[in-house]
């Protein structure tokens, strides 16, 4: 039976080719929506979980800038008093704290857009270790930097910031978030860079002493994260606490509008395609009614005719779905960064299980559409008496 269906499909390459394209379009819309939704969610989850810090305390005035650094790597420079760190450390529920300095670079030698420089105290820092792609088990030496996945340059490549030369010591795995465009350096090196900048750099960098840009916090009990955040905001003046939930919330509104748009596109694609596919199925079956009558005369049961008509539509749907999923997957991978920039959402390729699930549901939905479209002709022509089918309307 499959052989007959296969030959029937190949016999009408243009009509079936267009049907395959229609199914491919439907499948691509459905799959893309799921890919983007999961790709963005996973990116946020990974990025947030990789922060290492449960909370980030930033100056109240610079809350948005801080969020943009983390989410999109939009560089900024801001500070507040380092004494904030001691105050935060005393808050109930806080296990440890570490300081960060945020410095926007000038045009760097690696790239002609500014990148975010983040100075850390390697002894106190507890956030970077989970991110590191290659563990070299040596501490950050003088002028060593750790770069995000999208910074161009191999390990050992020198990069210049504010006239000071650094060496890439390690590279981080992609997170689909701001940290991919960030560069981590020692506090000490940052101050040396700032001191030398009036002579060596195009523009001097002023780094005030006893200032930090953010305080990273690890809480004792993860379940109390929000509570501790509230306590910090209550007890330390002029600060804001960034939590995973408010980072997620910031993204989700953009994400929702994008995925709503894609879901709508998939819905309309289906709405328009389904009647067209159904019409083509009816026309195709009608064209072959005499053939169906002959098949019935030769001994084909109603079930066989039903399966022949439905089977043809389902197989065309499967072929279209596979093409649609594979093609949209290739496009999504190739244009991942472009989509992320244009739509302003973080994006990574979802993990394999999620992908398989998305592909599976897309396939199932597309096959379902193919089956529904062919259901009427399959039922109608299988129920026809053989002679009535052969007569084709004449008496």
């Amino acid at each position, binding site marked *: 039976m499959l052989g*007959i269906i296969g*030959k*029937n499909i*190949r*016999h009408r390459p243009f009509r079936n080719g267009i049907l395959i394209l229609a199914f491919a379009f439907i499948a691509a819309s459905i799959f893309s929506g799921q890919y983007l939704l999961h790709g963005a969610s996973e990116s946020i989850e990974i990025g947030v979980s990789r922060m290492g810090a449960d909370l980030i305390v930033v100056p109240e005035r610079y809350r948005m800038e801080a969020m943009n650094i983390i989410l999109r790597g939009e560089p900024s420079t801001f500070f507040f008093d380092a004494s904030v760190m001691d105050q935060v450390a005393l808050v109930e529920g806080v296990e440890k704290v570490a300081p960060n300095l945020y410095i926007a670079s000038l045009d760097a030698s690696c790239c002609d857009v500014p990148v975010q420089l983040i100075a850390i105290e390697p002894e106190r820092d507890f956030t970077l270790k989970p991110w590191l792609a290659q563990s070299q088990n040596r501490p950050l030496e003088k002028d060593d930097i750790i770069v995000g996945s999208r910074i161009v340059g191999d390990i050992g490549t020198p990069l210049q910031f504010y006239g000071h030369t650094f060496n890439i010591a390690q590279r981080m795995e992609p997170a689909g978030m701001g940290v991919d465009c960030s560069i981590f350096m020692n506090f000490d090196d940052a101050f040396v860079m700032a001191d030398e900048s009036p002579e060596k750099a195009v523009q001097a960098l002023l780094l005030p002493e006893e200032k930090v840009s953010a305080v990273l916090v690890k809480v004792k009990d993860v379940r109390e994260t929000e509570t501790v955040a509230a306590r910090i905001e209550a007890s330390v003046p002029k600060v804001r606490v960034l939590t995973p939930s408010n980072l997620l919330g910031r993204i989700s509104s953009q994400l929702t509008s994008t995925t709503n748009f894609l879901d709508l596109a998939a819905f309309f694609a289906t709405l328009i395609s389904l009647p067209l596919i159904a019409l083509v199925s009816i026309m195709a079956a009608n064209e072959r009614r*005499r*053939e169906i*009558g*002959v*098949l*019935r*005369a*030769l*001994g*084909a*049961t*109603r*079930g*066989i005719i039903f399966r022949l008509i439905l089977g043809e539509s389902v197989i065309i749907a499967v072929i279209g779905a596979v093409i649609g999923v594979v093609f949209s997957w290739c496009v999504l991978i190739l244009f991942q960064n472009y989509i992320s920039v244009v739509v302003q959402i973080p994006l990574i390729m979802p993990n394999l299980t999620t992908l398989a699930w998305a592909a599976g549901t897309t396939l199932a939905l597309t096959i379902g559409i193919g089956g529904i479209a062919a259901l009427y002709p399959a039922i109608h022509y299988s129920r026809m*008496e*053989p*002679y*009535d089918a*052969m007569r084709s309307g004449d*008496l």
Partner: protein
Amino acid sequence: MIEARGLMKIYRNGQEEIHPLDGIDFTCEKGEFVLVTGRSGSGKTTFLNVLGGLTLPTAGSVKIAGRDLLALTDHERCVLRSEMMGFVFQFPGLMAPLTVIENVLLPATLMGKVKKEVEAREILDQLGLLPKVDAYPNQLSGGELKRTAIARCLINNPSLIFADEPTADLDSRTEREVMELFHGLHEKGTTIVMITHTPELSSFATRVLVMDEGKLVESSH
């Protein structure tokens, strides 16, 4: 073999009623070769299709080998057709995507039987179609199409053959060959009911009937 009583078939076209069969009684013994002739539109094709169970009569009964067609389910009729009957229609009715041999094997394929490729080739050889075994219907002449349809009819060794104008598109020589083929089958015991417009073929038949306005009349033979 075939027993039909009071066969009636009525088609309604709006207010108009058409009676291609108007109360027909018909009996055919095993091994007979019955020829049915008559004017166009006299109901011959409808009659043949009713006998074959391809359409059910509005009234009356049909029994094939003692089994009442109207009492069977559609599935049972299909099985009966594929086991016992062979059909040759006015049009060739071949499937365009399949080759000649695939078309001939179709009844066996539909029954899920093991492919009878050797038998198919023998039948095609008998009908002079062996060189065209892998050709597609759009590559065959009218006569070749008809002969392929006849070969398809024979693949399941039917004991009862219904043929609707099997020699219509054939030249006289091929017509003769085909009729001799049917004659040979008849001699081996196959029951044949054939519709034809060619009175000259009556010499092959054991009985000739004439269809006139929905009624069957025995002709002198």
